């Protein structure tokens, strides 16, 4: 099945049906599995009795969207703060509304490369070194790390999906394939949602992406607004298969008679949406990032970095929330009470303590000083200057050199969430301008 059109009202039924076969993840602000403001497991609900409209259908006035947002916010009477809390309990029926928000706070990478995950467990007798006879230590895969059931993500934005093709280059390399990541990639079907109206922070085209880009996606859905007389109060999703897996998914849905094939006018509507989005986003793009490496190669010692980093606080908001940042730390998490730090290895004695624990991999950030700190106290990147430079160089120079792609998909999360408004779009444009002025050549010479 190459394409399938469903009404938005049917989304719940569609997701519920999928849930029988897959674990379905949707963008959500709720503090549920997958974490707040990221992606979470969809929980199928009993469907409303036939004929009874769901709550999101009650209002069919023209500016429904805006009204809806207003009720969400104002309905609590206490302004934004309370509004936020309330939003955390968004019912599933509101999903189509929620999907219109451009991006989750936490990126899609979390479903493949989580904030923290155990990479091995261990069990050691004799507290530390085994029984002294070559027995007593075992390492094993911790249970429940890898997803059992195959998964479907519904509503990822194209930039988030494209970020997976960036992460693939790191985690699915030939030399050291990382099956924690790879197995999740393999068992996840991603249904993307094209961006009718990009956010003011979006700049995917400057990184080779597109508001309707299909990189990393199995299915791309179009959010078709309601038209007079089309029988829907909220509009439709038109889902187009990108990969064979995507086709199979749509086939599964159409067998359940949950949608219909698209009409010619639907195709035209899709084209119109694409064009409008491209036009809108083109207005404020920074310089193209794909040739930035050439400039960056020559400006390692440019004074620009000294002014750039000054306002940076050195937190990890930009890197943790970045869908392409892959740096991690490995930390030892012995089970409580069993930890031993230093001390002599107990030999003999009647009681042999048993040490169990896990080794965990956690997101880490090149913006932290400790990231590169040697045990001797020497730090190759001692100040914010080197660290901000590393972040920019890595994304637009080192990564392209090593993997042939920029490590930025233009999602704009770092722009939006940086506490000091250190805007990577400005950085990109400044660097491109440095190249234009011939600085690069003169420096590297």
């Amino acid at each position, binding site marked *: 099945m190459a394409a399938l059109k469903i009404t938005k009202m049917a989304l719940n039924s569609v997701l519920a049906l999928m849930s029988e076969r897959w674990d379905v993840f949707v963008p959500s602000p709720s503090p549920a599995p997958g974490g707040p403001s990221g992606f979470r497991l969809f929980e199928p609900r009993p469907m409303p009795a036939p004929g009874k409209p769901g709550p999101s259908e009650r209002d069919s006035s023209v500016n429904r969207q805006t009204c809806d947002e207003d009720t969400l916010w104002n309905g609590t009477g206490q302004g934004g*703060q309370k509004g936020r809390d309330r939003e955390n309990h968004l019912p599933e029926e509101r999903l189509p509304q929620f999907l219109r928000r451009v991006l989750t706070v936490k990126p899609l990478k979390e479903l493949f490369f989580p904030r923290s995950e155990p990479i091995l467990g261990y069990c050691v007798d004799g507290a530390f070194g085994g029984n002294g006879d070559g027995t007593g230590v075992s390492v094993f895969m911790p249970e429940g790390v890898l997803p059992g059931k195959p998964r479907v993500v519904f509503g990822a934005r194209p930039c988030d999906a494209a970020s997976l093709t960036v992460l693939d280059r790191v985690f699915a390399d030939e030399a050291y394939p990382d099956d924690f990541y790879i197995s999740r990639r393999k068992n996840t079907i991603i249904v993307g949602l094209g961006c009718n109206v990009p956010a003011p922070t979006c700049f995917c085209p400057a990184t080779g992406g597109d508001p309707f880009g299909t990189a990393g996606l199995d299915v791309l859905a179009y959010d078709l607004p309601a038209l007079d007389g089309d029988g829907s109060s909220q509009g439709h999703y038109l889902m187009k298969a990108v990969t064979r897996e995507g086709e199979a998914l749509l086939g599964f849905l159409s067998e359940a008679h949950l949608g219909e094939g698209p009409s010619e006018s639907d195709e035209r509507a899709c084209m119109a949406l694409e064009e409008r989005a491209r036009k809108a986003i083109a207005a404020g793009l920074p310089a193209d990032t794909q040739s930035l490496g050439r400039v960056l190669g020559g400006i390692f010692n440019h004074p620009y970095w000294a002014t750039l980093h000054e306002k940076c606080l050195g937190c990890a908001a930009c890197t943790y929330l970045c869908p392409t940042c892959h740096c991690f730390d490995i930390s030892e998490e012995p089970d409580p009470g069993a930890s031993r730090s230093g001390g002599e290895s107990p030999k003999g004695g009647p009681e042999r303590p048993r040490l169990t624990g896990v080794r965990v991999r956690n997101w880490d950030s090149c913006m932290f000083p400790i990231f590169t700190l040697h045990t001797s106290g020497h730090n190759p990147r001692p100040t914010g200057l080197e660290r901000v430079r590393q972040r920019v160089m890595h994304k637009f120079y080192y990564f392209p050199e090593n993997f042939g792609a920029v490590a930025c998909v233009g999602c704009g999360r770092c722009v939006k969430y940086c506490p000091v408004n250190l805007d990577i779009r400005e950085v990109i*444009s400044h660097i491109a301008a440095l190249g234009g002025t011939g600085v690069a050549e003169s420096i590297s010479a």
Partner: protein
Amino acid sequence: MSAQSPSALTKTLREFCAGLLDEGRVDVVVGFGRGTLPLRSTPVFARNPDDASRLIFDATCENNLSVFVPKLKDKRIAVVAKGCDSRWLNQYILERQTEGERLYVIGVRCQGVIDRKKLDAYLGSRRLLEGRLEEIRGQGECGEGLEGEGAGGTGGVEGAGGVKGAEGVEGARPGPGVSVSDGHIKWHLEGNDAEGRPWAASLDFEDLLSDSCKVCVKKGPVYADVVIGENGETVKGNGETAKGPEREPSFDDVKEVEGASIEERWKAFRSEVSKCIRCYACRQACPGCYCKECFVDRSAPRWIGGSDDETDTMVFHLMRAMHLAGRCVDCGACVRACPMGVDLGLLNRKLQKDGWVLFHHIAGFEREGKPLFGTFLPDDPNDFIL
């Protein structure tokens, strides 16, 4: 009401700082400039009189700039300081992190600053393309746009711009400026919705105001060398401006929580903490978190694990709050920096309340003496300290 406005403040600020730099009285002015998104500012480090033209001050100036003071190598540092910023500068001197002589405090009278997460919550799926403050008085008058200053940016490279959302509205808007001392201020917002249709809205100033600003005890600076008023007037501070809180601190929010059962409080704390991704933006944004090695980063002995384990995250937040007890000035910079919407304020405010109720102490009003936790009375009824 006079026809003066935040722009008047900004204008005076620029002139004044250009003068300071020109005369070589300071080496750097740490202030705010226009950011790249509507209703966003960004820290600016002005080192020559020309840089001073990028300075602004208004309700988008959300960072606590004193955080940069310990990092700067410049000899004489001027800081554009709101009430809470100035209180951290004092606290730095009290804690001997910097010398008073090194600082030149340019106090600005503050009306409170925006909490962008409240804005986000309001916006939902609407995109914000423009935002400004307006004064609504009587019929349809509107104030000068905050975005009227034109695009900001880190500067340095001409013609590099082209960043969407940074343009704002060129030129000043008609009508009198915004004065916050009287009249009714509104946030004016414009953009398009998820279907591309334009929308506009006007929200009350309070609606997007940071929670900490709602309970602020001192909107003016403490110990400023000069104060620039909201109408652009300068008052020589003589280093002694307006000490002491302007009003009794109120802790209604804390009392509400204290009234809850232990189970309820625990649940609420857990749910807050569960959002945390340990990005440490809160720590990095806080002027008080200047420890050379934060306890969370210590490996020998190790205090907490590195994963997103709930207990570890709780320990981080509890320890951080304890380290800031008697020092936190309730500027809210940590809350605003947090991308995940963790409400860090309550823990801090509980400790502030204890400081106030038990010792009549509020941080940041003294440059000399001892920090609250460095104080001990011989007749203290508790002997555990000894």
